[in-house]
């Protein structure tokens, strides 16, 4: 730890830091723009200028950039020297020469880093009398608003977009004071991570478009720590609410998971919370088939009465919390609990879970993935199934560059230097997939194969690593590929295998586990990670505790002896199975009770509908694909009669006098009971502090200390202000009073620090700049490396063989479209395309179709018409359907299918978010 002197004071700082980092870490305020803790320094903005002195006798010193100056033993700096201060003020003044008079109508205002820095250096009056440069804005799609006039040319946007996220369609254009940051022409930004520009850009150039059109300043947002529910990664988010509406989602720093960045599905997909499709009332279907609104309590007692008589099957949901699934299981009994996944998916998740539990390989966090120096992606299109992981893998390929830099003793933050040094040299990343993926541009080896072949190559890699012969003959080309990939993994210090349930192929999971097993040595921890389908896929599987039916079993049960009651928790069965099957299930069931947030086709088949809160209005524990249990807290209270899913179920449980429910009153009771009942979930209580851990007066305020309008917000309803709602269920409060310092990392509702109104204030909450939160990293890991790791039998091919004229049906994923809830956010819906079938040109030629034509797909569950898109990157004989998109509900991944040209094909009207009607019964 070198000692440096800042303004005469000696400070111990971390080796290898730059002065800016060190100063911020010491709590000193040094203004900056272009440096970013995740992206390093380039010294572009000149804002972090300080004086550096030669030695003790040097009184003049010279101006250096803090972010480009390494801290070395005995180095002497001055932040406060007049010359340094004057220089910094001059820089701000020049940045402000062309800055528009926009703050009141700028969506960055109040959390603008430029505002903060301007105030920090004390610049006040614009003395320059010349005219201001102006720019025309571009339309960048429905997610991001562009206001180019406000740019200070710090280059953070292009560094993030191109260098960090691998985008190609945003660039710096023109020269000198005409520099322009935008696309070569107007159009939707292509990167799946473009939304981070909103937080990366220190000014109001890039802002959240839906926020711009329904704006609330940061200080007026009520926020709570939450977890993204749009995929299995479980990124930490901070949703903000005002007037009962979700206004925006910002990144919530979690050192081990999402770090500083989210994907666009997570950032913009949460707006389904405000959807007009929210179920507004408790509904009971009358004799005439129409719903009438009924009183919530009488509905609870009627449903409880139903449960007491006859057999009830509970269908859980991989998008509901552990607690809700657990309560459902308790209500209906473990033997009657279904995870809500299809049998195929349920088995896959169970299989993945087993592999992870048994494997000696480490299940890496996202951050750990970034440090892997050789990666193999087996069969998973991570960019579209678990997007944040793709961003992490993109960073992993830079480890080669960091290693080269370390050889030259260049610090890791020397961003431009390291990029220049490494040029195109990257750590190996191999991607085996059914079609080209968005990671291929940084991959060292890619191949597009059918799922069976992917598994075979996987096993061949494992065999190669173990020095054995591959079990099956792959042909020379694939054998060579397997050998090369095995070599890259063998010579790595931290090899990582990423796979998942995306292909619907258990052999791929086995192959990945086999590779990880072959890689794990006494001194080398291999990493193994599986992407799963939904935010709590793992949680639902764990609640089932080894049992748990798949949907098909429920269907069989219904077909055999009928079901008296069906209690469905937040699940749209039409997405999980074909229309005809779902219909027959509903026909066989006596009473169908549905708890859900948005209307779905399943709603139309229910006899009782109970409206549940969205993720933003309820607490819950979710288990991510890493096996990390994380708690999300309600940002605001939902309006009666909407209740939290767990509260409905608990109310029903109390009413039906279910034994285990008796002792439960609060949410934490449910969590504790669940942890005590299910061994593997023992750790979930540690995901976040319990409500009782904080005295009522010290609760963490969800509102900022400058929350405005408290005596006017609801004065139109009544001028007499009610008391603030209390929160019995969490350590947070719905007020601005409370104790906001020294939070537990899982309880951080927003970041703010005096003088630092923007999200850059985060460093004040970190133990070291860019490091973990002082209050600890949120969440708790449930799965640690096992020790059994017995070799598993290769399950080889699991798919039926192809007969003549048949094609392999593979699922293709879309970041916007494949996830159920995010597609109902209006902005995201604009980016969704109707379901389609992609096929290589060779298949299209066989069928005599071309782009835009229709094909009829003969599936076991009925015929489906889909629009053809030619995708030449697809593996031979494979046709890919848009998984999760309306109209593809009953299609089975991996099945063999017959295709024929659909005559009289007409493009279906663009139905979003509902599966009904498109699948023919």
């Amino acid at each position, binding site marked *: 730890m070198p000692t440096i002197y800042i303004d005469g004071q000696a400070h111990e700082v971390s080796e290898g830091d730059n002065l800016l980092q060190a100063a911020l870490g010491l709590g000193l305020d040094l203004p900056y723009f272009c440096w970013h803790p995740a992206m390093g320094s380039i010294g572009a903005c000149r804002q972090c200028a300080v004086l550096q002195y030669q030695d003790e006798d040097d009184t003049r010193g010279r101006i250096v950039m803090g972010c480009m100056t390494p801290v070395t033993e005995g180095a002497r700096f001055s932040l406060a020297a007049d010359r340094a201060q004057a220089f910094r003020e001059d820089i701000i003044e020049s940045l402000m020469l062309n800055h*528009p008079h926009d*703050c009141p109508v700028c969506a960055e205002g109040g959390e603008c880093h430029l505002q903060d820095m301007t105030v920090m250096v004390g610049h006040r009056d614009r003395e320059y009398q010349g005219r201001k440069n102006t720019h025309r804005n571009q339309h960048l799609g429905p997610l991001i608003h562009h206001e180019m*006039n406000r740019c200070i040319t710090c280059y953070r946007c292009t560094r993030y977009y191109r260098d960090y996220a691998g985008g190609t369609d945003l660039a710096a254009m023109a020269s000198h004071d005409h520099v322009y940051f935008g696309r070569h022409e107007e159009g939707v930004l292509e990167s799946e991570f473009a939304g981070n520009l909103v937080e990366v850009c220190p000014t109001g150039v890039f802002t959240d478009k839906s926020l711009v059109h329904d704006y*609330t300043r940061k200080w007026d947002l009520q926020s709570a720590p939450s977890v993204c529910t749009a995929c299995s990664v479980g990124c930490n988010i901070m949703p903000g609410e005002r007037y009962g509406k979700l206004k925006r989602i910002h990144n919530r720093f979690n050192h081990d998971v999402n770090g500083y960045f989210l994907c666009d599905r997570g950032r913009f997909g949460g707006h389904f919370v405000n959807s007009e499709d929210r179920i507004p009332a408790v509904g009971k279907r009358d004799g005439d088939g129409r719903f009438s609104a009924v009183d919530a309590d009488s509905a609870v007692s009627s449903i409880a009465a139903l449960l007491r008589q006859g057999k009830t099957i509970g269908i859980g949901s991989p998008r509901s919390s552990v607690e809700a699934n657990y309560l459902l299981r308790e209500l209906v009994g473990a033997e009657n609990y279904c995870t809500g996944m299809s049998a195929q998916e349920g088995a896959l998740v169970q299989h993945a879970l087993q592999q992870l539990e048994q494997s000696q390989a480490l299940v890496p966090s996202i951050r750990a993935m970034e440090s892997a120096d050789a990666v193999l992606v087996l069969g998973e299109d991570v960019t579209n199934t678990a997007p944040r992981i793709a961003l992490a893998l993109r960073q992993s390929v830079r480890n080669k560059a960091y290693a080269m830099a370390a050889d030259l003793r260049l610090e890791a933050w020397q961003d431009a230097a390291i990029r220049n040094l490494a040029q195109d040299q990257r750590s190996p990343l191999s991607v085996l997939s059914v079609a080209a993926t968005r990671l291929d541009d940084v991959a060292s080896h890619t191949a597009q194969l059918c799922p069976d072949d992917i598994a075979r190559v996987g096993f061949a890699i494992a065999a190669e690593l173990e020095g054995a012969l591959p079990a099956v003959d792959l042909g020379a080309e694939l054998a060579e590929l397997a050998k090369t990939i095995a070599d890259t993994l063998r010579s790595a210090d931290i090899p990582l295998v990423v796979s998942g349930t995306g292909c619907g192929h258990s052999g791929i999971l086995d192959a990945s586990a086999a590779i990880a097993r072959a890689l794990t040595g006494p001194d080398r921890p291999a990493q193994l990670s599986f992407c799963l389908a939904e935010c709590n896929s793992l949680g639902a599987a764990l609640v089932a505790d080894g049992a748990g039916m798949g949907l098909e079993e429920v269907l069989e049960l219904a077909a055999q002896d009928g079901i008296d009651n069906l209690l469905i928790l937040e699940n749209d069965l039409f997405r999980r199975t074909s229309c005809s099957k779902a219909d027959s299930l509903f026909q066989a069931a006596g009473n169908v009770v549905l708890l859900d947030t948005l209307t779905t086709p399943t709603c139309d088949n229910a006899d009782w509908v109970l409206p549940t809160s969205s993720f933003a209005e309820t607490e819950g524990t979710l288990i991510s694909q890493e096996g990390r249990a994380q708690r999300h807290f309600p940002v605001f209270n939902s309006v009666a009669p909407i209740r939290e899913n767990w509260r409905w179920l608990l109310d029903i449980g109390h009413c039906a006098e279910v034994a285990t429910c008796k002792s439960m009153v609060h949410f934490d009771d449910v969590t504790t009971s669940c942890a005590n009942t299910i061994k593997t979930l023992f750790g979930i209580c540690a995901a976040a502090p319990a409500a009782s851990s904080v005295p009522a007066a010290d609760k963490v305020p969800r509102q900022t200390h400058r929350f*405005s309008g*408290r005596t*006017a917000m609801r*004065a139109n309803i009544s001028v007499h202000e009610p008391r603030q709602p209390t929160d019995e269920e969490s350590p947070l409060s719905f007020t601005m009073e409370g104790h906001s310092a020294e939070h537990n990392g899982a309880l951080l509702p927003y970041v703010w620090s005096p003088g630092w109104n923007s999200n850059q204030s985060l460093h004040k909450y970190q133990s070291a700049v860019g490091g973990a939160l002082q209050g600890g990293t949120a969440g708790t890991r449930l799965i640690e490396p096992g020790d059994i790791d017995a070799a598993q039998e290769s399950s080889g091919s699991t798919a039926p063989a192809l007969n003549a004229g048949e094609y392999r049906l593979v699922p293709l994923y879309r970041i916007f479209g494949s996830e159920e809830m995010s597609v109902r956010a209006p902005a995201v819906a604009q980016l969704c395309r109707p379901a389609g079938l992609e096929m290589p040109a060779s298949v299209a030629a066989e069928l005599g179709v071309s782009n835009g034509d229709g094909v009829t797909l003969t599936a076991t569950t009925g015929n489906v018409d889909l629009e053809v898109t030619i995708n030449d990157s697809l593996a031979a004989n494979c046709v890919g359907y848009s998984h999760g998109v309306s109209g593809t509900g009953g299609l089975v991944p991996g099945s063999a299918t017959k295709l024929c040209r659909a005559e009289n094909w007409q493009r279906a009207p663009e139905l979003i978010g509902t599966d009904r009607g498109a699948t023919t019964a």
Partner: protein
Amino acid sequence: MYESFISQLRTIWQVLLHSFTKAETVQYPEEQPYLAPRYRGRIVLTRDPDGDERCVACNLCAVACPPDCIALQQGVREDGRWYPEFFRINFSRCIMCGMCEEACPTNAIQLTPDFEMCEYDRQSMVYEKEHLLIDGPGKYHDYNFYRVSGLKIDGKDKGEALNEAEPVDVKSLLP
């Protein structure tokens, strides 16, 4: 003892003198007091010189307000202007401090010399935008925020605001 007696006498004398001064009391409400133009009374929302709503829904008045009695929601109009979808002042809480006027970057919110706002029903003290918005520019006759701001609105393109140069041509490499 002696001093107190003098003080008493002096007081009685002064009271007596007051009997001959002119009464300050006015026959309110028949007789109205003079209130300076900058007197801080009932709050209004004004219009810019072109007759359009001045308020851009920036929320600065709301955050400056000590009793937190201003609430509003921003919206964006077809023509590109930010405006308040609703704007509410709870006058039963307002302390007429004028901080909102002080904070307003557009001169939209202004206090007027009208303090006669008594109501029997407290609910009637809640004013919405239609109660607050007046037809004129109030105390500030000339200021129009949108003529200064860089935001493009209908009728004012980029580069047409005060002190702005033509939008740059990104394709040109000329200095």
